[in-house]
């Protein structure tokens, strides 16, 4: 739960949705609430239902059950057969690939929503210019989308959605279309702009870094279900599914704890730093794992014999995939790789201090 919900007067719940969407064999069931001014990221693998959720919120896809409320407005209520068409919802959408109108200039793209809502030409033009100015795109107003860079197109799409003063902003993979170089810069810029927006924001992404940078709160979606929700740091330190653990780069195991000693599903045992009991998850960073050529004589509470499966250079460390009583990833320096003679098939000993583990209820 975010701190905001403790102060309803300051940050009233703005978006309140209970979605149930069926499409063939796929079913999405999701509860989603977003405060005013809050940015929530829907994070999940491809095909998890993130975009389906976004389309349902925008009104582009009818929900089979549930409701969508925005402030005091009921956008959709399956039981009451209420359904506002997209053009009557105060929802702004930044689509994947941005979907700028190719035959219109940047200015005309931004003015489109105002003109569609009956604002006269001169006023719409003035407000579009203002919005482009705020985005730092004043000199690109007369360009067609084809002449804009990816980052510029993204800002035009953002301006186009924001200029109609929506209460809810939906962004579908807003950074996926950008190359790695511009992505960093555009991401920081987008974060700033979303922080300025006082409505509710939902960002769909499959990229953990995008989600962590942009969002106040994460909702992790897998296979049509919400599997975890929390602040980025909560999710990053205590992942509950293998997918999230992989995203944030943690080793994660399920097990049964008795007074801090966790017996994992495969029979291996890990010792935690606290006196936990019951069904738990154990997570630790690959960099916490120390590798030795011989059985170590150290204070580490967890040691086990392992075999190297593969090695992969990641930045200035090497990610070592281990198998044995438990499959784990360990990060070591290239120097250690040489000194320990690590190669696929090599036998090593792994050590992990109890204090480096996070043990939390499953």
């Amino acid at each position, binding site marked *: 739960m975010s701190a905001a919900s403790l102060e309803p007067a300051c940050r009233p719940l703005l978006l309140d949705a209970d979605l149930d969407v069926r499409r063939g064999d796929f079913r999405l069931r999701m509860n989603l609430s977003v405060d005013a001014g809050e940015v929530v990221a829907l994070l999940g693998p491809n095909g998890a239902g993130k975009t389906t959720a976004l389309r349902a919120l925008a009104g582009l896809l009818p929900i089979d059950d549930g409701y969508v409320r925005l402030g005091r407005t009921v956008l959709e209520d399956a039981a009451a057969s209420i359904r506002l068409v997209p*053009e009557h919802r105060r929802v702004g959408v930044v689509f994947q690939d941005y979907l700028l109108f190719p035959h219109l200039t940047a200015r005309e793209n931004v003015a489109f929503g105002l003109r569609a809502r009956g604002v006269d030409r001169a006023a719409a033009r003035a407000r579009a210019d203002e919005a482009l100015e705020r985005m730092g795109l004043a000199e690109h107003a007369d360009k067609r989308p084809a002449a804009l860079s990816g980052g510029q197109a993204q800002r035009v799409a953002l301006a186009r959605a924001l200029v109609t003063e929506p209460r809810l902003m939906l962004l579908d993979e807003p950074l996926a279309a950008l190359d790695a170089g511009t992505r960093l810069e555009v991401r920081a810029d987008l974060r700033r702009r979303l922080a300025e927006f006082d409505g509710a924001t939902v960002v769909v992404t499959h990229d953990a870094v995008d989600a962590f940078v942009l969002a106040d709160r994460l909702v992790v979606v897998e296979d049509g279900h919400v599997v975890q929700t929390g602040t980025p740091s909560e999710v990053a330190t205590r992942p509950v599914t293998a997918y999230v653990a992989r995203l944030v780069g943690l080793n994660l195991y399920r097990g049964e704890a008795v007074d801090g000693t966790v017996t994992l599903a495969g029979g291996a045992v890990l010792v935690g730093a606290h006196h936990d009991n019951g069904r738990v998850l154990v997570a630790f960073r690959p960099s916490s794992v120390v590798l030795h050529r011989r059985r170590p004589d150290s204070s580490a509470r967890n040691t086990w014999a392992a075999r190297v499966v593969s090695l992969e250079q990641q930045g200035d460390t090497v990610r070592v995939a281990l198998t044995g009583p438990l499959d784990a990833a360990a990060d070591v320096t290239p120097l250690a790789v040489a000194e320990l003679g690590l190669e696929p098939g090599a036998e090593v000993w792994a050590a992990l201090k109890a204090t480096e583990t996070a043990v939390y209820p499953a």
Partner: protein
Amino acid sequence: MSRVGRRRLSVAGGLPPAMVPFAVLALLFLLLPVVGLVVRAPWRTLAAELTSPEALEALRLSLVCATLATVVCLLLGVPLAWVLARTRVPGRAVLRALVTVPLVLPPVVGGVALFTALGRRGIVGRWLDEWFGISLPFTTAAVVVAEAFVALPFLVISVEGALRAADRRLEEAAATLGADRWYIVRRVTLPMVAPGLAAGTVLCWARALGEFGATITFAGSFPGTTQTMPIHVYLTLQRDPPAAIALSLVLLVVSVAVLAGLRERWLGTAR
């Protein structure tokens, strides 16, 4: 593109050398008659031939009727193309096949068919005559009807293809921006399909302008009211071949000029 690149492309096209002469022959076959027209045109008496009252009358009638037929095709054809491209009406495949019937039907048969439908004794024409006193055959309106009947498939097929190819997500984007259906059609969909629509319109107009069989069958050949340029050319050929050549040349020039003009304006900028 560089010369090297182009050469590589033609190789990648996988053209067997034996086909080249046939391709050249095909090109000659298409161009030779046009060259014949130009070579055999009675250049000295051309001005006189062309400004004869009958020729001018036939040309005016042709242009007016072809344009009216094109307008009719646009009004009827765009919505039909929309239905074929965007809706899930049952039997849509059959519907699409039916739309192309005038394409494969001999135009004279089309004219006869129009008679059976809209003639004074036709299945619908009978009621038109009885209730409104309207009799279509052998009127200028009949020319427009015959031309529209023959030309409509060109427009429908072309616009339908464009509608299918258009990115519907842009229409969704427009809806989230507050645009209602008509606004989306005007500001997003039609501009998106503009190249296809333009091409269809040009084809439609050209087909209507050249219409002969259905027109002469359903509308007859009355100078001033139903004798369009192609019919006039045909009749002139019987008694005065050089004049017919001159008139044909005019029709050729008009068609090419319109095509070129539209290409500059729409097709050229759209891509």
